[in-house]
């Protein structure tokens, strides 16, 4: 009996989630790593002085922690599959290959989202809302945009990262350089998306006049990029698994 695509997808999702619930390896390692990056930010900004307005670069810092954490997570999630021979077992199982891609991308997105939910509030509290008003500044300090906008921009970024990242990580685990190769392939592919997301995030976090317009424009471009890239990754994933 042919199992429906949705049930195959659910079974694969369940496999990854059950494994994560037992080992708690992905979320803890990604979360801890993200925390450590925040500590490094704290050190890096410790000498910036009172007059420095951190919100001006907050979007870039936030994106940086997401990108680094996601690269760690992507690599780990595929190394798992590879080391224990799971990928081969999956290929032997009567599962459609595109479904393997979507299941893997979904779990990567899920774990990244969990880590973001933990880490982003921390980031916003320490670096944005806690930012000292520059002394003697005549400009009224602008208010950040609503939190759901930050979440939306990060979600668009994370969808792209998980989609293309899954394809590239599947390639890089079979190479000699593994995580290095992932970084080399991942960062140029993600570059346009990162640029767009940092503009959207920056618009929200600084809350300058007319920020909503920039935000929606950037989100639209980002979503378009996600759609194109995921379609391409989906079409090419089968070739990667074949060899």
């Amino acid at each position, binding site marked *: 009996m042919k199992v429906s695509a949705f049930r195959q997808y659910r079974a694969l999702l369940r496999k990854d989630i059950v494994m994560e619930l037992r080992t708690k390896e992905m979320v803890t390692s990604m979360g801890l790593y993200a925390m450590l990056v925040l500590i490094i930010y704290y050190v890096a900004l410790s000498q910036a002085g009172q007059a420095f307005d951190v919100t001006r670069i907050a979007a870039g810092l936030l994106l940086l922690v997401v990108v680094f954490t996601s690269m760690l997570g992507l690599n780990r999630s595929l190394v798992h599959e590879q080391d224990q021979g799971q990928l081969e077992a999956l290929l032997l199982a009567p599962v459609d290959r595109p479904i393997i891609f979507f299941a893997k991308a979904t779990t990567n997105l899920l774990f990244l989202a969990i880590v973001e939910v933990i880490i982003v509030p921390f980031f916003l509290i320490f670096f944005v809302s806690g930012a000292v008003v520059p002394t003697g500044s005549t400009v009224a300090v602008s208010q950040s945009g609503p939190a759901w906008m930050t979440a939306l921009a990060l979600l668009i970024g994370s969808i792209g990262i998980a989609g*293309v990242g899954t*394809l590239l990580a599947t*390639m890089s685990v*079979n*190479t*000699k*350089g593994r995580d290095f*190769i992932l970084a*080399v*392939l991942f*960062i*140029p*592919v993600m*570059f*346009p998306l990162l*640029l767009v997301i940092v503009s959207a995030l920056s618009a929200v976090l600084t809350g300058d006049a007319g920020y909503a317009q920039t935000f929606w424009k950037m989100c639209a471009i980002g979503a378009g990029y996600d759609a*194109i*890239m995921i379609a*391409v*990754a989906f079409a*090419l994933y089968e*070739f*990667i698994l*074949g*060899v």
Partner: protein
Amino acid sequence: MPDTDGAAKGVGSVKRQLQVAIILAIVGGVLTTAAFLMAFTTARVQTFGTIDAPAAVETTYPPAPAAMQPTDGTGVRYQRPWLSQKIFYFHVPIAEASFLVFTLAAIFAVLFLVKRKQSYDTRSRIGMETTLVFTIGTMITGVMWTRASWLTNWSQLGREMLSEPRLATYTIMLVFVIAYFVLRNSVEDPERRAVYSAVFTIIAWIDAPISFFITRMVPSNHPIVFQSGMDTTNLIPFIIAQIGMLMLGYAIYALRVAEESSRDTLTVLKEQLEG
């Protein structure tokens, strides 16, 4: 791994490939040289006016005559140097040639994934090699142009490269091509290497149309040549340079293909002699 498909066609086809490539290289070289000479002799320097720069800007170009200087003393007005116009006859054609060979590489990557013939992988790889050469050429001429036309100094250049849309996407294209070779060198199994390289070429190629059309879509400092209007004396060498450089780009690619396939043919012939 010798390409048996290529060898079956024999020495004759390699010879023909080589002849076409050499003819293209010669014609392309002559046209490019002619355009070079015309650019420096017959082409009229169109005046785009002057450019204002803050007083502290570091540039080798002469300031405009005293009568043209801003009266409030806020900055220095420089003559827009003529070099920016001469370099442009090469910068644009080299960039076009880089897009051409990159597209060839992507087409052969798709063909490889569909037909799994080893010669397609070789062609795709050679396409990427040629892209690397032309991308670096575009960057060098681009830096010269930027220095001359925007009066950008070296410290501003890095900033410009990642903030100006066309420059940023093109820089990423160079990073893609370098990453391609890093990827190739880190996969040992030949079949897997070919498949991964083809997949990555296709993903990387998406950047090419983005880079090409981005100056038409978002506000950018990068000029769009055909919208700015040109004098006939400028247009003729420009078109000749474009045709010549595209031919040269294809010729370099075809020469390398002929070289690789003659090597494969030789390997097969050797094996036949021994066996």
